């Protein structure tokens, strides 16, 4: 038992240390790459790196943009993804295999291959440049989440559905009142899985938004990191402070929801 605990502790150290180092570095007035630099020293601590970001970026505005972008993707994934996941798992219809294979193919194709055709389609044909919709569209339904939903719907016992069908309930009604309540933990897993993508996405919103007041946080910060931070008093610290600002909301949200995220025990959902 001791061994297991030590292994886990060692692992946790390896996983957390870069984040600790990021936080310490972002608070330093002067960069200190020596071993001593890994420990906080009162005379070398400052909030100036954060103040500089705050001055360079409209944090409130970019956070709202990130929220709208991410929220749109979550909504699309929840509605479209649950319907599709349910149909793929529990309903038999023509073309099911084709849709399933298409879903798998999506995961294999690199996004960079599709970027420009997609950009032309969305901007030239649909006229969605500089709009939230244009930002959301390519990510609107997360295929990995559809896959996860399907797996969880598959786990539900068939008898439940048969009984409901015998009672004459429609498929939509079965989905809404029988299936969804049973896979709530899976839904939250899907939500958090989906959240990470658009929240951290850089290339697409960067291409699609020319207007700064539409840029999400990840784009504004990357721009800050590549161009503006070099002029900051401590570019080293400025980069790390930018990293902290981007990481904080995702990590915070994760800590709040971590129980549900990890709720691997689908039984509790099925039985409960």
């Amino acid at each position, binding site marked *: 038992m001791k061994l297991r605990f030590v292994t886990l502790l060692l692992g946790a150290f390896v996983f957390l240390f870069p984040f600790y180092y990021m936080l310490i570095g972002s608070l330093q007035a002067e*960069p200190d790459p020596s071993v001593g630099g890994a420990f906080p020293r009162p005379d070398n601590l400052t909030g100036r790196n954060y103040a500089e970001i705050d001055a360079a970026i409209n944090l409130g505005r970019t956070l709202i943009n990130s929220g709208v972008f991410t929220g749109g993707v979550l909504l699309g994934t929840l509605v479209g993804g649950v319907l599709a996941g349910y149909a793929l798992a529990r309903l038999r219809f023509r*073309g099911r295999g084709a849709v399933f294979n298409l879903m798998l193919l999506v995961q294999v194709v690199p996004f960079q291959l599709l970027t*420009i055709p997609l*950009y*032309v*389609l969305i*901007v*030239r*044909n*649909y*006229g969605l*440049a500089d709009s939230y919709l244009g930002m959301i569209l390519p990510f609107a339904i997360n295929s990995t989440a559809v896959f996860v939903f399907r797996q969880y719907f598959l786990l539900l016992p068939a008898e439940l559905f048969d009984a409901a069908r015998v009672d004459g309930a429609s498929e939509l009604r079965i989905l809404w009142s029988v299936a969804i309540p049973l896979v709530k933990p899976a839904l939250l897993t899907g939500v958090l899985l989906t959240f990470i993508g658009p929240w951290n996405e850089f290339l697409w919103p*960067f*291409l699609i938004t*020319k*207007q*700064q007041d539409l840029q999400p946080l990840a784009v504004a910060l*990357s*721009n800050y990191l*590549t*161009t*503006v931070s*070099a*002029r900051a008093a401590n*570019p*080293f610290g400025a*980069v790390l402070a930018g990293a902290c600002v981007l990481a904080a909301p995702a990590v915070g949200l994760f800590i709040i929801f971590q129980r549900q995220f990890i709720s691997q025990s689908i039984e509790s959902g099925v039985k409960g």
Partner: protein
Amino acid sequence: MRRTFTAVALGAVLAAAAACGSDDAGTGIETRGPITVWYSNNLEEVAWGKQMVAAWNTAHPDQLVTAQEIPTGKSSEEVIGAAITAGNAPCLIFNTSPASVSQFQKQGGLVPLDSFADGTSYVEGRSGEVAQQYKSSDGKYYQLPWKSNPVMIFYNKKAFAKAGIDAGNPPLGTYEEFLATSRKIVAGRGAQYAILPAPSNEFFQSWFDFYPLFAAATGGKQLIEDKHATFAGDEGRAVAQFWRTMYAEKLAGQEKYTGDAFADGKAAMAIVGPWAVSVYRGKVDWGVAPVPTPTGTAADATHTFSDAKNVAIYSACKNRGTAWDVLKFATSSEQDGKFLELTGQMPLRNDVASAYPEYFTKNPDYRTFAEQSARTVEVPNVPNSITIWQTFRDAYSRSVIFGKQDPGASLDEAAKRVDELASQP
């Protein structure tokens, strides 16, 4: 499912048709009306851009200009290229890299300035002899040479003094002197590296290590002349060998530094343009010297890389008459003066040093750069220009920075590839 697909396809076709239909309607060199422009996002240029737009809008309320910043990071060419393809590029971009002009031109994204009655005469009148370097292979101007950042060597006086080098007039003229000084700096612990140009693989990095020295050694040759690579000749080899020695003796570093190596005292020298004057003011006690040459060419005869950014009119623009007027307004003698004052970068106009005498009396630091700006070399305006630079960079990185191949052989191979690329359409 078929019905859905048809509906989607129909929607796409309709949208495309609508986009095409609205195109071309009333596009002409005389058309006037509101336009959009983009400028770069660094603080100083934003300040200049804002006042320029405000001044124009006050005088022309019927032809309002809307201005936005574009990200100037690694990817601004990507944003522009995508905008051209989608047909939503603005009328003017005050940040067009000369290296991408041939590509934008091939895409049909640019309006030749010669199509305006006074186009050619305005470009050549403003910039003089230098303008020739910006002509495209079809003999037209697709860009207005706007501003340059002629690069020179900055050195840290404190680091030099610490290593026992005369900081007032350090020996940096010839390759031999430069190497000897560098050795002294590193041995005397003036700094960890004598100089630290970014050793990474991006196509544009050679503009700040190989190219300035090559321009100086050849008295102003471009990388490609008459569709043939020039860099594998004796001068190019000597430059490559010089940098090879710097890397081999660890006078220059092979690892990219996050942050500013010159400001942090990691390197005692840097290759910089006039923008550096304001950036390092109060941070480093610096001196400036021209880039080294084999024989120690005098400062007033040394060429260097221009690091210019230009203005182009994009073909998505409808009110081209206004765009041309705004372009002339923004590059007028008065606006160029304001640009110089606000950014310290050199407008690409005839004899900038004598055109704004008060400025250079007030800011003597910039005078050296202004004098240098008369002798600058641009990246060649040829097809496939970015591919050519990437080919060069890969060869340079392999042989000069990492020493995996003989620099001469590597340059020969690259020259062969580049000759092929330059002769393709």
